[in-house]
Each structure stands twice: as structure tokens, then as C-alpha cells.
């Protein structure tokens, strides 16, 4: 009988034709899906051309998602997005979406059922770790990795050790997946899980909806993690039920699986979190934020642009007005979410509150377009990074929070909680 393994080890072993893999060893895995976007694919396609193989090995396992600078913000962005389209047509890659049908890659691909439990996925985007919420192994890589994977269908990886994070107890009001992951990053630091798998479990995680789980796994990279992962349960399988294009495979860690360490949290003590500039680990509970006036509030991104996030924001914004000094920008992550927000009347609530509602794009999260900050400006955002200059001018500031805190702050004109509006 093989030695005990974590869920991450088991998925990796299954993708290199083995029963067992050991943390630290280098393996080449067969990929179920590989993705790139309008920023990382152009560089990858340049490298792919150098390999000299004319055809992509498995076109149906490739996803090309224009999402960062679309709708094309200028001619150069348009040229880059065009490269993806041309390549998709030429190589008969079925998974390509024009605006109006697609959205932000990490929300879109699970929605389309292209990632399922038990998969092994790489993406030329650091937030590819999002799909761990489905019980898949998925990790961010670079453009050259993606190029090589186009040619071979494989990727080299070092099997990571795992850290087990146990979240005990019940969540407090207005606390969700975003707060759990920000609190965790605050505790262990931006390199606290460097090269390691972050396995999330405990009753508070089991109680999270799928959106909250995606948010948690999405930010594993912000602690340096190779992947975030949550073992599939009924919630995971229910989400995939009418979406999955392939059969989900359920893996779970063995009870005596090896962990580099185990960290436990008492959720009764975790308040909504705010990460101050300029690191996601620079967190404070909302009660200790103090007086922080804001110029902009952004709700969206691959971290918090799901319908559940928009519903939470609408709950706070209904019948209220955005503060006169604040710009509120709300961005659904996909076309499906955009349509749901229209049907549910959320868009009307946002517009009546004095916010703007944008088509899906990564846009402001990375300082691309659709809400860039001027010198000295300050934003609160449901996005994932608050590095220097991330949303615009090098002397602007980004504070990270959940959708409820962000919506409440837009109304207050300063960072604050829903209880204060």
C-alpha cells in the first residue's frame, strides 16, 4: 500500500501515471487544461513559434481568454487581443471568447465547466490557483511554460509540501472567504506558504458557498503558495452539476497525510479584514482601521466579481447613495454574472446609488484601465493586490477588503463597516 498522501500529491500522482509522488521531487504532469490571457499569451505565442512544432498538441485543452485590457483600451491592447483570436482560429482552439460571451478567466472557466474536480491545470496567470476551490490542482506559471505546454501537453513541476489550514467555529457577520484568506496571509506573511500547497478545511470552510471558496483559493498566491485547495463536497459537486464538461474526480487527503505544518484559526475571533498598502499581508481587523478617507471603491475581479459578491454589495447599497467624494466602480466577472445582475435588479440598485457598472474586465485591478488612480488617491477594492502603483500612480494607495466593507466604505466616504451606514 502506498504511503499516505495529501489531495495535492494524489492529483499530481494521477497526472504523471503514478500511485505516489513525494514532496520535493520533480515530475512532468499531463495537463487537463492550460490557459493564457491577452497579456501573457502574446509572449507565449512568440516562444511557441521558436519551438518549431506547427500544431498545438491538444487544442481542446487550451483556453485563451482576453480579459485584462478588454474591451480593448487602446490600439496596442487591441493588437495583443487580436493575436489570441488569430491563433485560436488557426489552431482550431475551441475555448476562446469575444467580449459579450466571456469574462475574467478564473471565473469564466469554472462557470463553463472546463475545470472540474481532480483536474491538473496550469495558467499563465498567477491567480490560476483559484480552481483549487473545486478540488483541482491548479497553479500559475509563466508564458514560456504555457508555450511548452502548447507543444507537449505537459508541464514540469516540483511536488509541493502542504500546509493544512483549519478554520474552526462559525463566521461572524459580514465575514466571508475574503476575510479568512486576508487574515491568513496577515498571519503567515506574503511568503508564508512559499512553494507550498495551502489546504483549507474546517467547519467554517465547509459552510462557505462556492464563491467564498474560490476567493480563498484565488489568493493563495498572495502568501506565495503554489496552489490553494479544498476537498470537494456536496457544494462543490452541486456547482459542477449542470456545468462540468468532463466527469469530476473526487480526491481527499489521507487522514495521516504529511503536512509541513498545521495552522488553526478560531473564526469567532476573525473580524472583516482590511489589507493596508502595500502588501496583502498588511491586514487589520475593521475595528482597528481608523479614519481612512477614500476616493474610489472597486467591486469586482477574479477574487470577488461573482454574483454572490454583487448581491452582498447590493444589500448594502440598496436605497443609499455613494459619498459625494467617491467613485464606485462595479465590475461583474463574466457575461453570465452581468446578465444575472441585470435580471435580479442589482444593476438598478448600483446605478441608483450613484455607482457605475462596467462590462467584465480585469481593468482597474492591475492598473490597466476602467478606473485608474491619480497621484495621492486612495481606493478600497475587493481585488487581490495592493502593491505600489498596482491600480495607477506609484503614489496612489489600494486597500483590500470584502464586497460588503467596500460597498459600505463607498457610502461612508471612508473605510468602514456595514453597521455604520
Amino acid at each position, binding site marked *: 500500500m502506498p504511503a499516505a498522501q495529501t489531495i495535492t500529491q494524489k492529483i499530481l500522482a494521477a497526472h504523471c501515471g503514478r500511485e505516489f509522488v513525494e514532496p520535493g521531487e520533480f515530475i512532468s504532469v499531463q495537463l487537463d487544461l492550460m490557459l493564457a490571457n491577452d497579456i501573457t499569451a502574446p*509572449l507565449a505565442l512568440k516562444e511557441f513559434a521558436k519551438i518549431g512544432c506547427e500544431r498545438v498538441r491538444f487544442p481542446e485543452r487550451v483556453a485563451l481568454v482576453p480579459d*485584462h*485590457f478588454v474591451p480593448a483600451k487602446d490600439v496596442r491592447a487591441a493588437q495583443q487581443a487580436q493575436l489570441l483570436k488569430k491563433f485560436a482560429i488557426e489552431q482550431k482552439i475551441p475555448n476562446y471568447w469575444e467580449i459579450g460571451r466571456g469574462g475574467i478567466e478564473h471565473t469564466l472557466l469554472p462557470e463553463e465547466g472546463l475545470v472540474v474536480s481532480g483536474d491538473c491545470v496550469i495558467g499563465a496567470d498567477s491567480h490560476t490557483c483559484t480552481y483549487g476551490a473545486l478540488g483541482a490542482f491548479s497553479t*500559475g506559471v*509563466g508564458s514560456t511554460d504555457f508555450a511548452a505546454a502548447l507543444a*507537449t501537453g505537459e508541464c*514540469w513541476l516540483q511536488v509541493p509540501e502542504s500546509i493544512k489550514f483549519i478554520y474552526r467555529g462559525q463566521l461572524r457577520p459580514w465575514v466571508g472567504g475574503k476575510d479568512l484568506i486576508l487574515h491568513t496571509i496577515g498571519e503567515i506573511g506574503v511568503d508564508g506558504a512559499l512553494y507550498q500547497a495551502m489546504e483549507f478545511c474546517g467547519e467554517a470552510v465547509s459552510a462557505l458557498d462556492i464563491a467564498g471558496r474560490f476567493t480563498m483559493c484565488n489568493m493563495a498566491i498572495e502568501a*506565495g503558495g503554489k496552489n490553494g485547495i479544498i476537498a470537494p463536497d456536496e457544494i462543490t459537486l452541486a456547482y459542477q452539476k449542470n456545468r462540468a464538461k468532463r466527469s469530476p474526480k473526487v480526491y481527499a487527503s489521507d487522514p495521516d497525510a504529511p503536512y509541513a505544518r498545521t495552522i488553526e484559526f478560531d473564526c469567532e475571533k476573525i473580524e472583516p479584514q482590511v489589507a493596508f498598502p502595500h502588501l496583502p499581508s498588511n491586514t487589520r481587523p475593521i475595528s482597528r482601521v481608523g479614519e481612512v478617507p477614500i476616493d474610489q471603491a472597486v467591486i469586482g475581479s477574479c477574487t470577488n466579481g461573482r454574483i454572490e459578491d454583487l448581491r452582498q454589495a447590493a444589500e448594502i447599497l440598496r436605497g443609499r447613495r455613494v459619498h459625494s467624494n467617491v467613485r464606485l466602480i462595479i465590475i461583474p466577472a463574466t457575461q453570465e454574472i452581468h446578465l444575472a445582475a441585470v435580471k435580479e435588479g442589482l444593476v438598478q440598485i448600483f446605478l441608483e446609488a450613484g455607482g457605475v457598472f462596467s462590462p467584465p474586465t480585469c481593468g482597474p485591478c492591475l492598473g490597466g484601465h476602467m478606473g485608474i488612480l491619480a497621484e495621492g488617491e486612495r481606493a478600497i477594492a475587493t481585488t487581490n493586490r495592493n502593491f505600489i502603483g498596482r491600480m495607477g500612480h506609484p503614489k496612489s494607495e489600494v486597500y483590500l477588503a470584502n464586497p460588503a466593507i467596500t460597498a459600505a466604505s463607498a457610502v461612508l466616504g471612508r473605510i468602514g463597516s456595514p453597521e455604520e451606514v
Partner: protein
Amino acid sequence: MKLRGRAHKFGDNIDTDIIIPAIYLDTTSEEELAAHCMEGLAADFAQRVKPGDVMVGGLNFGCGSSREHAPVAIKAAGISCVIAASFARIFFRNAINIGLPVMVCPEASQNIQEGEEIEIDLAAGQIKNLTKGTSHQAAAFPPFLQEIISAGGLIEYTKKRTAIP
């Protein structure tokens, strides 16, 4: 192969948005990327670098986005090698994949200061601080990574593996 140049010293958690801000990711031109390398921290960085110079970082160098434009910009700016106490994993694999030499050496990362003259023996993993007369040993690469490095990067490595006879 021996590399020689002056050190450009940076701190901990140098992220890829600092190395190359997203606003410049609308190109794959190495020259354009190099021109904006590190500009959020040091506006004149691209002008100051001389070919062969060495970049020195602290912990978690290259954290954040997967943008390979970051190591491409550093390499195209003329930097011959990046030494750090530790690297974020995507930056590390990108550097290996594109053939930008990287060395993990906490001791050198602490010891080396801005402007000091550095000599590096990549094969031996040796870092000499010629200004101070000190010497440091970097961590050795696992054999698998050495294969990619000696092939000249992942594209050359993949070419060999997928070669049509």
C-alpha cells in the same frame, strides 16, 4: 562562465508590478520593457544599468503576478544575474525558463551593498564581492533544473524533447 558587474540593491518582496508595471504589458518588445524596468522604485534604473550588472534582492523576490515580462525586462536591461535570499516561485521558474541566471543566497543578499563590484561563477555557484573581498556560496540547483539551464532555457529543452527526427 564568469559574470562581472556592479550591484543594484533592492529590499524584500520586490513584486512584479514594481519590476514592470502592468500599464507596459501591451508589448512583448524587450527594449520597451527594459526601458521601464523598476521605474516605480528607481526612475533612472534603466539608464544606470551597465551590461553585466547584478541585481540583488531580499526575501520573496519577484512575488505577485506571473508576468514573464518581469524577468524579460530585467534581462533586457542588461542585468546578468539576480541574487536573492529567496524567490517567489513563478518568477523563479520564469527566470530559469528564459535563461536569466538566478542565485539563492541569503548571505550574499545581506552582504552586498549598492554599487559594489561583484564577480559570479555560475557553474560553481560562487559569488565574490570584489569591493569587500568576501565570497559566498549559492544554493546548488537540483539536477532537473540544471538540465533546463544547460539547454539554455525551456524552449531549447522542449525542442530537444519534441524533436522530429
